[in-house]
Structures are given as structure tokens and as C-alpha cells.
């Protein structure tokens, strides 16, 4: 079997971050988080741990909601969703997420689609994983221009949820809400601490020599390349085909 590609390492990392969840929801247009969640479900079966429920928005086969698009939020508000994924046009060192735009609101120079459900889900889902494959100072800024969803809240604000980790194409960070701030947990193979520093607009804690992000075991990789890829093809046919093509060529980049 060829070595794990960078995307496969990210998918396997997400599956690791989801260990122990009962119900994970994945938003629209999120193929890597969806693959990670499917891998967690498959691993839970292999490991004979409690089953993992998946709600993938935009999927027919992996979405069991029957009460319209409000059900995801109602479900999350009651604590019935353990993990969710958020991305951002900007993410800052305090875990604030901006999905609205760059510059002075409302007529700034760049407008993104909008906050979607982030201003709510970030508060009520215990394990929110921030995911953005592109890792650049344009995205990871000192301070966001608009807070769609804040990384931490003052005492007295109802906040059972929030960010737990940040995964990018370069590395994996943990979030500490007490500071609040990020700590680099590991660097993906082929990258370095210096590279991450240069690509990140905010300061973060780290060990002098952070470890490499763990590659999946051959068993996990086999599960990912088999069952998970098949499941993924229903919702993300284009992405599944790309991933399959990667496997048969270099196995990495």
C-alpha cells in the first residue's frame, strides 16, 4: 500500500479528534470533514465502541433529519450534537471566526456568503473543530474584521460549546479557552514549525520541537481507501474520485 497522502493524514486526524463522539454533524461543502466523520464511524464499528451517528448536510443517505433545516439547530441546542466543523474566511488567535467579509462592515472590500449557523453552533456544540486546508496569513490573522462567532465568552454567558482544535494543511492546534489561544500540537509531515510561523498571523504556544502529525495505521488507511471512499462518493463524487486518483499515483504530494 502507498503511503498516506496529506489529505488522508488530515482525514485520519479528524477521525482521531472525533474519538468518543455519539453524533457528529457536517455542514455543506465539507468533503474532508465528512470523510473524517465517516472514518470515525467505521473505526467505531471495528473497535466495537458505541455507534456514531452522522448528519451530513447535503447528503441523502447520511442525513436522517425529518423536521426541515431547523432540526440541526434544535438538536444542537439540546446537546444532542457532540461535534461539528467550522471554517472561516478569517480565524484569529483567540479562536474568533469571520464568515462575513474583509474591511468595514457592511460595505467592506470583500464580502463572503455570511455567518450561516456559526453564531449559534459555536456556543452549543461541545467539540467544534476548526478546519481550513489553506494555511496563510490572509486567513489566520491577529484579529478578525467581523466576529461571526467568538472563540471564547466571558463568565456568565451560556457556553457549553466552542472550539477544541484547529486543523490546517500544515498542522494541528489545540484550543485553550482559558487563555484563550492556540497551541501547536503537531506539524504535518513535509512541513516545519518555521513554515507554520511564517504562515500564521497570530502568535501561538508550541514546544521547541513539536512532533509530526501521526500518519494513519495501515488498517485505518485501508478502511479509508475502501469503505469510506465508497460512502463519500454519494455526497462528494468529485472529491472521492480525486482522492482515489491520488492513491493510485504518488500517495502524497
Amino acid at each position, binding site marked *: 500500500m502507498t503511503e498516506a497522502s496529506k489529505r488522508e493524514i488530515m482525514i485520519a486526524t479528524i477521525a482521531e479528534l472525533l474519538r468518543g463522539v455519539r453524533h457528529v454533524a457536517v455542514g*455543506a*461543502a465539507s468533503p474532508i470533514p465528512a470523510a473524517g466523520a465517516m472514518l470515525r464511524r467505521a473505526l467505531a464499528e471495528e473497535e466495537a465502541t458505541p455507534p456514531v451517528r452522522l448528519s451530513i448536510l*447535503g447528503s441523502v443517505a447520511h442525513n436522517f*433529519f*425529518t*423536521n*426541515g*433545516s*431547523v*432540526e440541526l*439547530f*434544535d438538536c444542537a*441546542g439540546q446537546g444532542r450534537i457532540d461535534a461539528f466543523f467550522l471554517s472561516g474566511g478569517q480565524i484569529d488567535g483567540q479562536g474568533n471566526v469571520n*464568515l*462575513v*467579509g474583509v474591511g468595514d*462592515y*457592511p*460595505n467592506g*472590500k470583500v*464580502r*463572503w*456568503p*455570511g*455567518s*450561516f*449557523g*456559526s*453564531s*449559534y*453552533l*459555536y*456556543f*452549543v456544540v461541545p467539540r467544534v473543530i476548526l478546519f481550513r486546508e489553506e494555511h496563510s496569513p490572509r486567513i489566520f490573522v491577529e484579529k478578525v474584521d*467581523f*466576529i*461571526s*462567532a*467568538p472563540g471564547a*465568552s*466571558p463568565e*456568565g*454567558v*451560556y457556553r457549553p460549546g466552542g472550539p477544541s482544535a484547529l486543523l490546517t494543511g500544515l498542522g494541528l492546534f489545540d484550543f485553550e479557552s482559558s487563555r484563550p489561544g492556540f497551541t501547536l500540537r503537531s506539524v504535518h509531515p513535509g512541513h516545519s514549525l518555521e513554515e507554520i510561523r511564517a504562515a500564521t498571523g497570530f502568535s501561538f504556544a508550541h514546544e521547541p520541537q513539536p512532533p509530526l502529525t501521526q500518519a494513519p495505521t495501515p488498517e485505518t488507511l485501508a478502511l479509508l481507501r475502501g469503505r469510506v471512499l465508497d460512502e463519500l462518493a454519494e455526497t462528494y463524487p468529485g472529491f472521492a474520485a480525486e482522492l482515489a486518483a491520488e492513491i493510485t499515483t504518488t500517495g502524497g504530494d
Partner: protein
Amino acid sequence: MSRPPPSTRDQLAQAATFFQSGMSLALPVDYAGVSMALTWPLLASGTKDFDLVCVPTGGLQADILIGAGRVRSIETSAMTLGEAGGAPCFNRAVREGSIVIRDATCPAIHAGLQAAQRGAPFTAMRGLLGTDVLAQRNDWRVIDNPFSDAPDPVVLIPAIRPDLALFHCPLGDRQGNVWIGRRRELATMAYAARRSLVTVERLVDDLFATEETAAGTLPALYVDQVIEVPQGARPYGLWGVYGGDLPALKRYAAEARTPEGFAAWLEEAQAEAAGIRGGAP
């Protein structure tokens, strides 16, 4: 099955009686059942100054109305063409400051409509504290939860009561009932709105004839008119019936990047709608 006495063409033309300048319009999210077919008579009516409520996000239909200069304000959690990218006319209007934007978050829009559905003046919701979404909304309030012993700030969202809800779904019947299946946000829109105008793929005799269809049926009580328009969501898809036309959405995204490109696209789309459906452009 015989067609209903007035033709689709006549009915779409008559739909103009529902449209008034200055009305608020509730439009569903792209995957829930967008009545693209009603976009053309709405434009043809010449009405304008709409306040859009996107439930809970907006796409092609809202973007066309903005591009055509018919929108005064928009309340939405996002504006996007999905895989086809950003909403070009919306982005342009925001940059130019030509529309008022009320940025929201999905559950706040659902909550506001649900308050209206219950006839309540407002509802409370978690989250939002410390966001610029809340900071920019002078119509939302923060109060201390009166049922809590400890300080507990919560956000109040006023009822959203649109003047008119527009959507498309698979089935309607001769009594004016429509079948929405599990797309319950369509029911919420209709409950909350003063009037609802619905297009359907197909008219059947009686949706209450079996429990299977009765369960997912929105009764005629909330529906002011049903018009049979096959393929009425195109180029969007309709859940369980047909898929979306991504190349068409991409084409729109590319052409509407400039006002001139949008105008050309619109002219062609209106001509096509007139040709297929026989409606006046």
C-alpha cells in the same frame, strides 16, 4: 389527469395580484424548494422595494431580484450559489451600499418565523452574545433570563411576519393543499407569512386521501394559491424529484459578474420563461 381549467400561463399571470411594492418576501434555501417559476411574473409585475427574508440563506432567486433592482433590504444568514460560488449581484450591491443588509444566523431566522407561527411577539435564543451579528442588529435585544437566579443574558428575536411566502414543492391537490414532506421550513414560512403562493410539480386529486401523503401535507388554510408548474424549481433541483443544474448556475455566476452581463442573462432568461410557459415577460 385533466389539467385544471385555467392554464398555467393564465395562473402565473394572475399571480401578479399577489405582488406589491414594499412587501416582505420569504424565500426558501436553495435545497428546500425554490419557486424559480414565480421569479418571472414577479419581475414582470414591475413591483419593487422588497424586503427579502431568506429562510435561512439565499441564492439565485434573491440574487436575481437584487440584480434587477427590486430589493430594498435582505435578512439572511448567507448568500451563496453553492458550488457555483458567491452571489454576484448581492456582492455588488453590498459593495455599493445599494441595499440594506441584515446579517443573521440560521437558527435566528427560524426562531423569528416560529414566533410568528405561534402568534408570539418574540422568542429567546442562545448563542449570538459577543458576535458582530448581534452588534449590528438594532432590532434584536439582550435581556437577563427572568427565570434564572444567576445572571444569564439571552437574546430576543422579534417575530418575523413576511407579507408573502413563495416556494415550490412536489405535489398539490384540487383543494389547495400542498405536500412538503420533511421540508418543514416550508410549513414554517407559510404559517408565519400573511399569504403564501406555491408552485407544484404536479396536481393530484386529494392529498388527504391516504395517511402517507396527509402526514407531509400543508393544508390549504395556509396556502392562498397553488399553480402547477412542472420543473418549477429549475435550475435548482427539487428534493426527491430532480437534481440541480450546476452548469446553469455556474453560467449565471460568470455572466452576472458585471451589470451588463447580468442584464443580458436576465433578458435571455425572461424570454425563455415566456417561451416555455407562455407568460408575459
